[in-house]
């Protein structure tokens, strides 16, 4: 494999009618490493994963997964990959155990081997107690874990996880991160898509930021955050008429101009040391008799990355192509 890349996607193009879901995207996933694909809803993440997993035919591009051509060697590619999509694709009526045995059998493992592997996975994903209950009784986090287990039944070399934590609560998300970390510890190549900078930061060795079908930035989490402040302080001013006043008052605390929203009385401050600055914020505003309705200290988000790269906030946009009447199922 060239340059030890397990995943190569060069100049991938995919159009749905007039919508350019992918407009010349290139990504390279190093073998045994985690590549994070970061972007808002509708950026083209899922489309790219579906193409890599042989589910969708690209309109153009050179795509190799595990050294195999996704167009000409579909079956071999499928023998080497695992996929867990955005929606836990597990059968609700079957039990957790039956789901995994079924997947194992469809990988053409002998029944006994599929059963042994299932027992192992149920244990690994802390599902042993619920193993013989129908999946419809599972919580969201349990379903995701089962889905993840299903994707690695055949011990794939390359794993695609499409937004594995979307829709999970904070606790389940952190538990999921732990699970994913153990998966890649033994050298599996992982491509992970996410909308959360924190998640990419937590899990990925390298991050590619995409938006509207284009790669807009790439690098390690540290490289991406290098041009960005370490912390952000969100301030809500009780009287929105004082927003501009507050903003100019706080200017000395930050190297960039504070972002202000006069309508809502919001000021966002990018600072190097949040804990120190927050005391300053309170002192300065209090000194000028400006009342604070709400004050939040937070880590940079995907939105902040977007602001620093493109100068624009994320536009939440439904990128799914329009349904074409009664018939005509299209993909996003």
């Amino acid at each position, binding site marked *: 494999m060239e340059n030890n890349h397990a995943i190569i996607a060069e100049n991938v193009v995919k159009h749905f009618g007039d919508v350019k879901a992918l407009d010349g995207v290139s990504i390279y996933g190093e073998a045994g490493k985690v590549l994070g694909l970061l972007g808002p809803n509708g950026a083209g993440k899922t489309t790219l994963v*579906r193409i890599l*997993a*042989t*589910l*969708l*035919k690209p309109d153009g591009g050179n795509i190799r997964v595990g050294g195999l051509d996704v167009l000409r060697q579909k*079956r*071999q590619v*499928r*023998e080497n*990959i*695992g*996929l867990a*999509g*955005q*929606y*836990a*694709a597990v*059968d609700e*009526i*079957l039990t957790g155990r*039956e789901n995994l045995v*079924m*997947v194992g*059998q*469809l*990988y*053409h*493992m002998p029944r006994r081997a599929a059963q042994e592997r299932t027992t192992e996975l149920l244990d690994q994903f802390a599902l042993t107690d619920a193993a013989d209950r*129908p999946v419809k009784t599972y919580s969201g986090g349990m379903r995701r874990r089962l889905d993840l287990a*299903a994707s690695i039944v*055949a011990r794939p070399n390359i794993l695609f996880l499409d937004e594995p934590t979307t829709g999970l609560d904070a606790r389940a998300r952190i538990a999921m991160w732990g699970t994913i970390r153990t998966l890649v510890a033994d050298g599996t190549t992982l491509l992970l898509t996410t909308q959360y900078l924190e998640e990419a930061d937590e899990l990925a060795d390298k991050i590619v930021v995409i938006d509207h079908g284009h790669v807009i930035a790439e690098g390690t989490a540290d490289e991406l955050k290098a041009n960005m402040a370490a912390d952000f302080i969100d301030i809500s001013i009780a009287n929105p008429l004082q927003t501009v006043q507050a903003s100019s008052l706080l200017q000395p605390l930050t190297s960039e101009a504070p972002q202000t929203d006069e309508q809502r009385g919001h000021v966002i401050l990018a600072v190097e040391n949040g804990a120190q600055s927050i005391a300053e914020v309170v002192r300065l505003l209090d000194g000028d008799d400006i009342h604070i309705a709400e004050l939040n200290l937070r880590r940079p988000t995907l939105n902040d990355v977007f602001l620093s790269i493109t100068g624009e906030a994320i536009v939440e946009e439904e990128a799914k192509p329009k*349904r074409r009447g*009664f*018939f*005509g*199922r*299209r*993909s*996003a």
Partner: protein
Amino acid sequence: MTGQAGAFQRFIWTFTDTYVVMRRNLSQLFRQPQLLIFATIQPVMFLLLFTYVFGGAIRFSTGGDYIKFLLPGIIIQTIIFASTNTTIGLNLDLSRGMIDRFRSLPMSRAAVLAGRTVADTVRGAVTITIMMIAGMVIGFRFEDLGSGLAGILLAIAFGHAFTWIGATIGLYVKDPEAAQVAGFIWMFPLTFASSIFVPTMTMPDWLRVFAENQPVSVVANAVRDLMTGTVNPEEIAVALAWIIGIFVVFMPLAVWQYAKVASR
């Protein structure tokens, strides 16, 4: 798992994969006993209602005992309605991402469809067995066991052909709600404008021409004759031609649509 599987191995896998998927679909059915009970009660109820409500009035135009006319017809109706389950079931699998999972596995393409259509046909066959028993209880008798069983097999083959139409529709419609309607709306004209419940001779000409020549009537007539002891080779040949024709058109169509369908 295996790097380069031979053609023969892949051929075998088509069957084992189909079996695995079929078992999944059937266990879904048997774990929802309510579904199974109501799916069985409904056609039996139809059988009883038609026999006792319409039977007396229709008797004279069906040449005597209505149950002899009705039971073979209603068996056809029951078995072809099994294709509704195929439409809805496949569409649910699509919208819930199951099809994506299956398609990302190195399994046979046809197996997801065949596993579904065979399971729905088995389900239909279970239902018509219960209807046969109900029919026997209210007076139906085979004239000849051999030809009677042949008639039932012909009905099941026809039902299986229809599940492939159902599969094609299920892969085309956009969501499960649409699949609910699309799954059986097309079957009403085919079952009512046919010789399933009544002889076609009293229908207006334009309708009669359609009713007498459409596949449901053709197969229903052949099945009815077989079940009442008449073997008419020409009739059976035309019925088989329809069954084969439906397979030839809809199997490739469904497999082709499956290959390119993208859920969500």
